[in-house]
């Protein structure tokens, strides 16, 4: 049976408590994402964007509500199942790239395969193939510090895709990049979405970029989804 939505959240809430003070990072968020679509999320800092991303990426668990990805309720997964989900079902990229500084571009890309029990020769082969696709094969032996921001983010994209996930979560992937490079990165993501059917959820400050490439946009404010009017008035 094919679920109607690729990603679906239902009354998703995340409350952080520190002592007696409770802070609701997300409140009753309901989103739906169809397969092979591109969802843009905007919002000010502290609006809960990253919390939503971490929940969708299986890095965190909700306080209440549920998340379904490809019909499976990942909010009910145990830590082992969540690790498998992160390993094979979802790829994530971040504003700060989160590459391992002491590893080369190739080693960074191949890193997730280490946990997928892939043999070393196969790891290198696959990492080279995907680095080639993002145009960085020539720089495979460079460390992140020897690469430009755009190149680092492309390495991060290659790493996110090495296990062939069907879902890519991008948490402000252009936040540290100039506008030209930002455009290139988002174009690359869009191409993955259009040509390879990858489902993408991307957080960004840059409404223009999302307007141009995303199929749908939502705006988060104080941990809840704001309506589109509010979204426009805020921008």
């Amino acid at each position, binding site marked *: 049976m094919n679920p109607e939505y690729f990603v679906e959240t239902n009354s998703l809430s995340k409350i952080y408590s520190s002592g007696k003070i409770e802070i609701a990072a997300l409140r009753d968020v309901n989103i739906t994402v169809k397969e092979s679509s591109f969802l843009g999320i905007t919002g000010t800092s502290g609006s809960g964007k990253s919390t939503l991303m971490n929940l969708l990426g299986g890095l965190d668990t909700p306080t209440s509500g549920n998340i379904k990805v490809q019909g499976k309720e990942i909010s009910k997964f145990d830590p082992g199942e969540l*690790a498998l989900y992160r390993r*094979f079902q979802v790829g994530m990229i971040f504003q700060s790239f989160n590459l391992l500084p002491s590893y080369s571009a190739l080693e960074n890309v191949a890193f*997730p395969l*280490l946990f997928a029990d892939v043999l070393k020769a196969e790891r290198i082969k696959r990492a080279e193939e995907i680095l080639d696709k993002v145009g960085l094969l020539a720089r495979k032996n460079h460390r992140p510090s020897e690469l430009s921001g755009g190149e680092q983010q492309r390495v991060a994209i290659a790493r996110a895709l090495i296990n062939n996930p069907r879902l890519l979560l991008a948490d402000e992937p252009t936040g540290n990049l100039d506008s030209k490079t930002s455009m290139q990165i988002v174009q690359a993501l869009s191409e993955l979405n259009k040509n390879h059917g990858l489902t993408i959820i991307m957080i960004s400050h840059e409404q223009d970029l999302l307007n141009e490439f995303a199929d749908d946009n939502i705006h988060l404010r104080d941990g809840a989804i704001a309506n589109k009017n509010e979204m426009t008035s805020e921008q």
Partner: protein
Amino acid sequence: MRFTDYIETSFSNLWKMKLRTFLTTFGVVIGIGALVSMFAFGKGMQNNVTSTFNELGLFNYISVFPRSAERNQNNSDHYDPDDQGYIPPAKDINQPVRILDEDFVKELSAIEGVEAAFPEIRFPAMVRFNDKENFEMIQALPAQISKTGFIKLREGSFFDSDEENSVLISDSMLRNMGIKDAKSVIGKKLEISTLAFELSIESLPNILSFLQGKGLPFSSKNYQFTISGVMELTGMSGPIAMRTNILIPAGISEKMKKIQITSISDIFQSIGQPQGYSMVGIKLKDPKYIDSVKKWVEDSGFNTFALIDQLEEIKRMFIFMDLFFFAIAMIAITVASLGIVNTLVMSILERYREIGIMKAVGASNGDIKKIFLFEAGLIGFLGGVFGLALGWIVSTIINLIANQILSGQGVPHMSYFSFPLWLCLGSITFSILISLLAGIYPTIRASKVDPVVALRHD
């Protein structure tokens, strides 16, 4: 993750912090080195004792003493567990007390399993050789017994008969006299002066001066001997029966006038008691005859002493020694394992973000635990291997120095350390286990890193 990946990852992680890895591993190396060399020393000493005993046939040896009738009567209601010679009051207390005489020795020699029985005769004498005088305890030994493996000769030969005027001297005596070449003394003359208690006209001046409280009523007799061989004394003080620098044939000894003192009890021997040998040695064909021969001797009314009885005691002593060494080495190892804990905890703090990334790309808590545990294990393995090497090197150096020093004192060259396979493999395994134990806390801590926090971490 695959096993080889764990090893490769751990190696490369440790390699990234070379200095810290080196220092931490060095702590383990010292701990394991101390443990290994101490155990090797304990084992080496144990081997030396056992092999010396075996080599000298001491496990085949029983000493027989007369059972003092007086003592038995006085102490019949008293039990002292330390008293080796004590035999519970026997029913034969009123039987005539047997003496350790030639007949008994002959009887002994005929028992199954007895290779030889001979009186242990010892007496004090002045030995003159090379213009030097030394006071020595002389021991008499039947010629046939001298060849049964008790004594090892460095030079020369054993006595051919009990009647020849030959003497065996020890190499340590030679060394004390400053003679290095043992060969040069073979065939040389040596004079033994015995003290004899004599009531005769010639000794009258001695007796008179004794009665005046000046000197003792002894006269001395001089005997000439030819050195036929030089004995090797062992490092472990030599066989108890042969703890002497001078050996002469038993036949000659009998003809010499002398005061015979084998043990201090001879001096206290009451007058009028039947005379006999004060000690008889029995050499067995095999240690398995110990119990039967001992029983026979004891049933005949004598006390026995066999070194094999002491072996259990010695073994127990070695266990205590090992435990003591183990305790010391464990202090070093505890310190080293705290170093491992510290290194791994530091490493987790430094690699906080890395752990977050690992989790983000799909590492399970188990994967992370195993990565850190492998790092701990690798430190342990390296520490174990190099610790073993260090222990071996230090032991070898100590052994060289000890032999250098002790050979000057007449102790033959030997290995004070022993490295059996179980010690080598055991120390490496132990090192790995201790390191894994030290890695448990850091490992749990690493697996509990919250990826959300870690990915925000700078």
